[in-house]
């Protein structure tokens, strides 16, 4: 199956900074790809670049191949036809992502009538269907509610309904569950996964929550300071992380260290913060890296393909053949 989305060397430049520095990844139909990173990693800007929604002063470079076309070379007019219909996005804040002066029905109908040639009556019927699809109770009644009459979880579902209204091939969820309570988050993630299967949609889940990634993602890309530093299946990446940043992140996460209490010892820290990455000529993670070598300061490490699905941007990674040998001998 050819990749639906093939991003090659995507970079986003501002006059004074380059928050995304050459990121490449792919997304396949029906797959959930997670892009993990903390603040400053560039993950949200990557998502905006895919939609062509970067701020005015930003310049995108590289290639974004979607369904055979390079999105970066398209005119705004053509991009508008793709947005909402083939690629859709849902955002973090359900409070501000919906227009407060339009009913939710109006907002869904609006999207339907822009991209598909439906009469108002048909669009409204389809809107009610969509509300049912996203499990809004009593959709025929609630279609005329305003956003402020709905709870946060409901609003997020409405946003999802708007996003999948035209059966997009790709759905980008930018921290879509971060602002939700954990029980509502579970509902929304289950909904996204069901829709992924039902509509054979590719879903890019942008998040900083490793637990969500471990539970829901088919593949994970880890970003740091504008670069991809690790990629692979969640199981192996979380069991044996290779990049020191991924290792540090997993070690620092109380969620994935069950049964660990402060009386057992401190949490592993990654010292410093992302700010130390600015101005680094070599590896951006070097100032915080516990195994940094002098050579790390001079060249940005290349992405190594450790195995078919696994990539790491750090040369101090054990070569798999040796790992296999040692494992068979027994540690």
């Amino acid at each position, binding site marked *: 199956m050819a990749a639906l989305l093939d991003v090659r060397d995507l970079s986003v430049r501002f006059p004074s900074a380059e928050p995304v520095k050459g990121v490449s990844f792919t997304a396949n139909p029906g797959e959930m790809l997670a892009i993990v990173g903390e603040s400053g990693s560039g993950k949200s800007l990557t998502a905006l670049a895919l939609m062509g929604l970067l701020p005015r002063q930003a310049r995108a470079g590289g290639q974004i191949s979607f369904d055979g076309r390079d999105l970066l070379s398209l005119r705004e007019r053509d991009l508008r036809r793709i947005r909402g219909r083939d690629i859709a996005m849902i955002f973090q804040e359900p409070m501000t992502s919906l227009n407060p002066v339009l009913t939710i029905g109006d907002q869904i109908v609006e999207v339907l009538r822009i991209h598909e040639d439906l009469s108002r009556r048909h669009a409204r019927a389809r809107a009610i269907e969509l509300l049912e699809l996203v499990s809004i109770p009593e959709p025929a009644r609630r279609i005329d509610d305003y956003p402020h009459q709905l*709870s946060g979880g409901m609003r997020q579902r409405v946003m999802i309904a708007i996003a999948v209204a035209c059966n997009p091939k790709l759905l980008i969820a930018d921290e879509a569950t971060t602002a939700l309570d954990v029980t509502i988050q579970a509902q929304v993630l289950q909904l996204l996964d069901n829709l992924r299967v039902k509509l054979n949609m590719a879903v890019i889940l942008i998040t900083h929550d490793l637990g969500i990634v*471990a539970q829901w993602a088919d593949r994970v890309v880890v970003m740091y300071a504008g670069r991809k530093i690790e990629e692979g299946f969640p199981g192996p990446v979380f069991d044996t992380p290779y990049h020191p940043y991924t290792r540090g992140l997993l070690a620092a996460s109380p969620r994935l260290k069950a049964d660990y209490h402060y009386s057992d010892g*401190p949490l592993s820290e990654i010292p410093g913060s992302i700010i130390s990455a600015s101005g680094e000529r070599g590896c951006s993670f070097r100032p915080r890296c516990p195994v940094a070598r002098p050579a790390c300061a001079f060249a940005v490490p290349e992405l190594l393909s450790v195995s078919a699905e696994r990539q790491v941007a750090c040369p101090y990674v054990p070569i798999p053949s040796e790992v296999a040998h040692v494992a068979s001998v027994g540690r």
Partner: protein
Amino acid sequence: MSLLSVDNLSTHYPGAAGTVRAVDGVSLEIAEGETVALVGESGCGKSTLGKSLMRLVTPSSGRVHFQGRDVTAMSSKELQSIRRSVQMIFQDPFASLNPRQTIRTILTAPLAVHGVSGRKRREEIAAQMVEHVGLPADALDRFPHEFSGGQRQRIGIARALILQPQLVICDEPVSALDLSIQAQILNLLVEMKTELSLSYLFISHDLSVVRYFADRVLVMYLGRIVESAATSDLWRGAKHPYTQALLAAVPDPSRRKQAAPITGDLPSPHNPPAGCRFHIRCPLATGICRTEDPIFRQLAGGHAVACHHAQ
């Protein structure tokens, strides 16, 4: 005698659509040197409870006793002495520091207000505190906007600890921070606890952090405490259906592609349901749950629940 003892505390606000019963009959105790966590989702009233304990909002009824003294009945003068002993760390590192004040001012002002005389002495204490929380010494001359989120939170911690309180109420102190910074701040809080013999009331919605950080956990739902247990006991066997649902909803790598979500939305504190507040979303709800509000009763081993069905 426990450090803090709360007896049937309620805080109601007049709201646009009727009274908001943010905290509705909460009783709890915190012993010296203990870290008690208060968990719940939005609208459960945990933040309001924290502020009510410090009388930053005025409770509507009930009593709060700190070291045996009744805080709820104190005059503002008497309250001043409590201020030294109970402090708060806030959630948003970007909003909790006055943007127009230097760190020096932020840290020395509380000392001046509480009678630490001599500017030099105050500056010494501030400088010590700044180093204690892991910031460089030249931080004193800077403004909050020159620091990152994690560093600002360190300043917030320094400010809370500079008066050497006994109890610190932490209102979601790491929720707004990146994962790698969370670990730093949590470790700092643990260190400060041992060094300064503190007790914490740790308010959070993140169960994983609570599991690491707390000695005892109180679970709140719609203004009431529904379960109270030691941390390990809670994770080994939660008794209240809401706690069970909460724990099940935490992303779990071992349950691939399968959430175990509970149905329904979080109710609003304007109109709590009759009977047990949770009965609408509860898989175990029976007739009695719809009519009678369960009392908070003690089970074996320091575990307490407010549920008709729990044993």
